[in-house]
Every structure is written in structure tokens, then in C-alpha cells.
């Protein structure tokens, strides 16, 4: 908005900018012209800056929030990893008060407060920095550790019968599997001596 003292000179400005704005007379003996084109440009520029320089129209709308609580010492539970089930009905979380005390929690997507299952296993999913956030996470102290939750499947291809499985020979990714209602994980952190542990989940509700 451009303002100046109300006097004859303003008429020249008014005449030189026809259609670009309107003149507003103010009680303090000034007149203001709002140049719409510049205002629009500034607004767009401001919007782009606020959005980090990209024109992304979408947003995340919060559906619900669920309080996972604290441990006995009042420490808020940290969430190390999470994943949706293939049908979207459940969310699996690896959480705990610290990396040494992780456990697995399944919550129902529709009603997380009503339906939960807790598994007292420590999958050591607390990755560091960019290496976190993958379904098959590797703990820095336990190379080749992987986790598959019941029906949380491996990557499926087209039909449930033809499951696909991939091993791309990376030190950060190894095989994972899912058998019935069992949770299984496998590690080979100590000189190639593989250890396998399986925990049977409670029967389905």
C-alpha cells in the first residue's frame, strides 16, 4: 500500500495507474493506493516462502491422536518405528522408554484406545538418523537384524499367493519373513552365528 499526503500531485499518480488499484482517502489527510497487481505478486511470493519454495497444495488432516503414555518414572514413551498392516486395520509400533527397553504394540486404526496388543519383545529398532524409518531396520549394534510382524508382510506382488521377497546384498537389509501369527526375527551380529527367536502372538481377538 502506497500512501502520500493528499494534494494535487496525487491526481497525477491516480491518472498514471488506472485499473491498478483504488485510492482510499484517510482521516489523517493522506491518500493510499493499493496496487492490486503488486499485492497479488507479494502475496504469492510470501506464500511460496512460507511453503518452503514449492507449490504443494495438499495437507495432512489429523484424524485422531492417541496417548501412548509414560513409563513408571514418568518418561514419555519414545516411538522408534511404526508401520501399517497391509489392510490398514492395524498399526504396529516399536516403542519404549529407551532403546534398551523396546516393545511392540499393535493398535486398531479405527479405535486405538479400545484394541491393543502388546508384545514383550525388543526388536532393537532404534535406528539412528536417516537409517530409521524403514520397515526392516537395523540396529547399529546388531547387523542384519530384521523384523516382520504377523501379516505385515513382505512386499506383496499382485496377489497374496505370489509373495515376493528381495535381498539386495546390502549390509543394511536382509531377509525377513512372516509365518502365521508369529513374530520372528533373526540376527547375525556375532561372527555369523545366526540366532533365531520367535514369539507366538496371542490368539486373534
Amino acid at each position, binding site marked *: 500500500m502506497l500512501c502520500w499526503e493528499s494534494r494535487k500531485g496525487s491526481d497525477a499518480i491516480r491518472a498514471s495507474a488506472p485499473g491498478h488499484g483504488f485510492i482510499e482517502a484517510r482521516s489523517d489527510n493522506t491518500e493510499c493506493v493499493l496496487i492490486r497487481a503488486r499485492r497479488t505478486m507479494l502475496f504469492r511470493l510470501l506464500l511460496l516462502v512460507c511453503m518452503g519454495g514449492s507449490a*504443494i497444495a495438499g*495437507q*495432512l488432516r*489429523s484424524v485422531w491422536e492417541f496417548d501412548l503414555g509414560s513409563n513408571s518414572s514418568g518418561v514419555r514413551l*519414545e516411538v522408534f518405528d*511404526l508401520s*501399517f498392516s*497391509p489392510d490398514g486395520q492395524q498399526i504396529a509400533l516399536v516403542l519404549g522408554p529407551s532403546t534398551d527397553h523396546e516393545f511392540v504394540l499393535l493398535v486398531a486404526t479405527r479405535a486405538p484406545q479400545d484394541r491393543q496388543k502388546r508384545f514383550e519383545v525388543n526388536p532393537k529398532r532404534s535406528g539412528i*538418523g*536417516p537409517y530409521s524409518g524403514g520397515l526392516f531396520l537395523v540396529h547399529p549394534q546388531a547387523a542384519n537384524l530384521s523384523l516382520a510382524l504377523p501379516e505385515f508382510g513382505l512386499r506383496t506382488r499382485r496377489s497374496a499367493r505370489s509373495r515376493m521377497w528381495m535381498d539386495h546384498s546390502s549390509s543394511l537389509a536382509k531377509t525377513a519373513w512372516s509365518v502365521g501369527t508369529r513374530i520372528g526375527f533373526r540376527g547375525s551380529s556375532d561372527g555369523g552365528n545366526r540366532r533365531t527367536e520367535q514369539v507366538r502372538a496371542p490368539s486373534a481377538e
Partner: protein
Amino acid sequence: MAVIDARSKSELRRLSDPSFRGRVSFAEKGVAICGITGREWKFRIGCFDVDTGSEIRRTKEFRYAEFRTASRAPRLIVSEYGRISGFIDFTWALGSLHRRTVWDFRTGKEIASWRPKQQLIHGIGGGPPQEQPYAFAISADGEYVAEGGSGMLTLYKIEP
């Protein structure tokens, strides 16, 4: 890279190109496969047709990026990181997480973007608590995002 049938353990296909770096993931019902491509500090997420090996689309360049795919939809979430300079040895080091973006690899559109909150993680290497971004997941249909940290779990609907 080999695509292997999980039941028979037989190799179905071998993809010589692209050269992925690190983790790869199926997307869109196994029709596509996505992974990190590029070179150091100039990474892109690329998605490729599993049957033909042809490229579907690549993201723009990132200093560093991690991703998660929606298993039944052509969507993934890219976590974009910055880099910092090491003044002692004059090398680049990984910086903080800048933002997460939902990306559609069929249309190439960025559908939504946000900067995640941070949580304090205890017990890493026996040192003091470290700040880390909230953990997240994208649903198989690519319509929802779950994000968790500091004792809270939140479900979000992605609205284009």
C-alpha cells in the same frame, strides 16, 4: 538386483539398471520398485517398472533422502535431509531432517509436505538423549500417514 519368488526361492528377474544405493522397496502392488539413485549428496528417489526395468519417474535431487512406499499405491514419503560442513576435515556430514513429502511417482506431483516434530531418544550408545524426528508410516493405499513420538501417536489423512 534380483527379484525372487518368496515361495520357490527362484529368481524371476534380474534388473541390471538402475544402480540403487541402499534399501529398495516395492510399491503399487509390486508393479514398481523404488530406491535411492544418484551419487553422494546428489540423491534422487527413482521408481522403476519391475517387469520391464524402465524408469517411471525420479524425484528432484536431494542432499540425502530416505523414503517409504505405499505398498498398493503409486505414492511414497520422502524424508529430505540437509548437509553440514565439517570444519575440521573439510568434508560434508549429514545434517538435520528438513521435511517429509508425499510424492506420487505416476504424476510426479508432491501431494503434501510437512516438517516433523522431534523427540528425545534415550539410551543410544550410552550417551545423553538425542533428538530424532518422529517415526512415521504410510498406509498401503497411500491415503493415510501415522506419525509417532514423545508418547503420542497421530493418524493423518492426506488431503490433496
